[in-house]
């Protein structure tokens, strides 16, 4: 059976303030979806809620992974079921080496029933694999010894997220502005890498402002989110239109959502 992620009528609040107002979205294995929208539209929130961030309250709706409602699961359980999110601004964890962290993560995701303290994947096997993947991403092997996201440049951070995607091989991956803060060459490398790692193997939800990341990952579906609702869905030509012309047409056609979006803007959620 092909994997399927379904988001049904999802309503989400933070501190009593509504951010998502009934999002519906279905992603199947092998599909690439682009999610676009202006600031404060709820793009990142949707990703974080799918991943299980504890600060958001889901007030209505459900998220189904292969038919199982995952809303009550913690982030680690969701990761072990095959969900992944590449974060826009990944947090630094000083003193924790990338390699240690990734060996734990990879072990847990590959052996979802592993209990704490049980064996990790063998060092040699892990080392060979991570070296190969770092090579593909043009990362120095010294990178594995560095502390997680600590003192990373913007480009290094994003590459580290893609490395994790490559190691964890999720069923579904949300990529939140994996292109932001990168120069043109770096975006191209990121775009190619995501294609090599994920295309046809995963369901991808790519959150982006630009079309460069989509160059090697042409979306079958482009969704526009505004004021916490998906107001329009099209193909890759919609992504191109939004990139060149912005959201004026969308706003004009969906005044209520546009108003809601501006409203959310006022409370400045991060």
């Amino acid at each position, binding site marked *: 059976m092909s994997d399927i992620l379904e988001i049904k009528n999802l309503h989400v609040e933070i501190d009593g303030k509504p951010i998502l107002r009934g999002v519906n979205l279905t992603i199947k294995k092998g599909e690439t979806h682009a999610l676009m929208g202006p600031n404060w539209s709820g793009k990142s929130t949707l990703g974080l809620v799918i*991943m*299980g*961030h*504890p*600060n958001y309250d889901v007030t209505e709706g459900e998220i189904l992974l292969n038919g199982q409602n995952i809303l009550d699961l*913690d*982030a*680690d359980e*969701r*990761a*072990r079921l095959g969900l*992944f*999110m590449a*974060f826009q601004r*990944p*947090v630094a*964890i*000083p*003193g*924790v*080496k990338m*390699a*240690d*962290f*990734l*060996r*734990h*993560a990879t072990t*847990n*995701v590959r052996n*979802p029933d592993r209990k*704490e*303290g049980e*064996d*990790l994947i063998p*060092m040699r096997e*892990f*080392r060979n694999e*991570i*070296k190969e993947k770092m090579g593909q991403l043009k990362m120095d*092997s010294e990178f*594995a*010894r560095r*502390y*997680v996201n600590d003192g990373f440049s913007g480009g290094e951070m994003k590459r580290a997220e893609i490395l*994790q995607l490559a190691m*964890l091989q999720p069923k579904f991956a949300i990529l939140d502005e994996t292109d932001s803060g990168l120069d043109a060459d770096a975006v191209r490398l990121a775009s190619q890498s995501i294609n090599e790692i994920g295309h046809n193997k995963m369901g991808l939800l790519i959150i982006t402002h630009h079309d460069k990341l989509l160059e090697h990952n042409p979306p079958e579906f482009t969704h526009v989110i505004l004021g916490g609702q998906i107001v329009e869905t099209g193909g890759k030509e919609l992504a191109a239109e939004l990139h060149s012309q912005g959201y004026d047409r969308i706003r004009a056609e969906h005044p209520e959502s546009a108003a809601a979006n501006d409203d959310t803007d006022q409370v400045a959620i991060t």
Partner: protein
Amino acid sequence: MTTDITESRELKSTEINKYDFKTKTEAVFKARRGLDEDIVKQISDIKNEPDWMRKFRLDSLKIFESKPMPNWGGDIALDFQNIYYYLKPTNEQGRSWDDVPEEIKDTFEKLGIPEAERKYLAGVKAQFESEVIYGSLKEDLANQGVIFTDTDTAVREHPELLREYFGTIIPSADNKFAALNSAVWSGGSFIYVPKGVKIDFPLQAYFRINEENMGQFERTLIIVDEGAQVHYVEGCTAPMYTSESLHSAVVEVVVKKNARCRYTTIQNWANNIYNLVTKRAFAYQDAVMEWVDGNLGSKLTMKYPAVYMMEPGARGEILSIAFSSAGQHQDAGAKLVHCAPNTTGTIISKSISKNGGRSSYRGLARVEEGAVNSKCSVVCDALILDPQSRSDTYPYIEVAEQDVSIGHEASVSRIGEEQLFYLMSRGLSEAEASTMIVNGFIEPLIKELPMEYAVEMNRLIQLQMEGSVG
């Protein structure tokens, strides 16, 4: 080109706390409970000591009795008359583990000491209750004139060397608990490293308290002669009891010109033990003294290892790690005293508090008159894992010179929700994620330790972290 890209040391957390076991033994002699002149005389008689030591003890008892309890630090709810001040577990000190009474030997086997000795130690002392019951030193070191013995033996066999320094670094009157130790001390290590001798592998002492309401008062004196080098490591554990025990040591270190001494402590006492310890080193010209002080156990620890930089070019470095959990208060810290020009001191302190535990950093940085061009840097970071826990910082800075550089940085952070979420979104459980964040927090100190001790420290932290969430 290095191929080792990861050094993960996953530990089997299925093991229970391997330190919490009680050994049934027949003491050769056990003094009655409580403290008075008769007890002190009894200890001195059993040890068949010279008059000067007997007098030193009795004078110290008077000082102890005259001094008030400290009105700072932790809450010392201790009944001094409820403690056993001396317990002699066996008549002979073993030269081989086979000479040690079976049940005591088993105790140290369980603690992994003979194994560590075979693998990476230059010498070992094992103290059980009041006496050192086993001692070894590699033959080549003994041949080079290195002395590593228990302090009681040193009183008999090296009286001149011992008397030159004993009680001079930390006089009895220094504080109430230094006076107590001076009155009833027993055991501890005496080390002399002759000029120019560099000992590559650590010398280790292991202190075990077994009985309830026991008091352990080891007395350690380390003399590192000119150009010599030594690394001394101590570990300490005890089984858990419901009522209190007391551990109150005095450690004096002399580091002569161009010599180097590192003193590492991994303190993992049971949570019914008051750990009230005075540690001080005098570092002479261009000498280096390092304290690595890890405090994970005990009910209350009050301990501030000190380096007095006595001559130009001396260096003092103190790394302090404190971890306090439910029912624990670690009042830990360090002291740097610059007594001469061009001296350099560094304190790095990391503390972790969880489940209602309390960690305090208490430190002194003092520059005496004339200690121009001295540099002193203090960095203390605290990590608090939950709202029930507490962290305090008490830095004391006293500077009597203009031309010096003093730096003090302190940070307190709560374990980050975003850090937890990040790690969990990659499949790590909340417990694994917390442990990883804590290990990362102290990593800058752990990596200073030799591999074996780094592994031990990480393992103890993992034990402390268990059950910390959920």
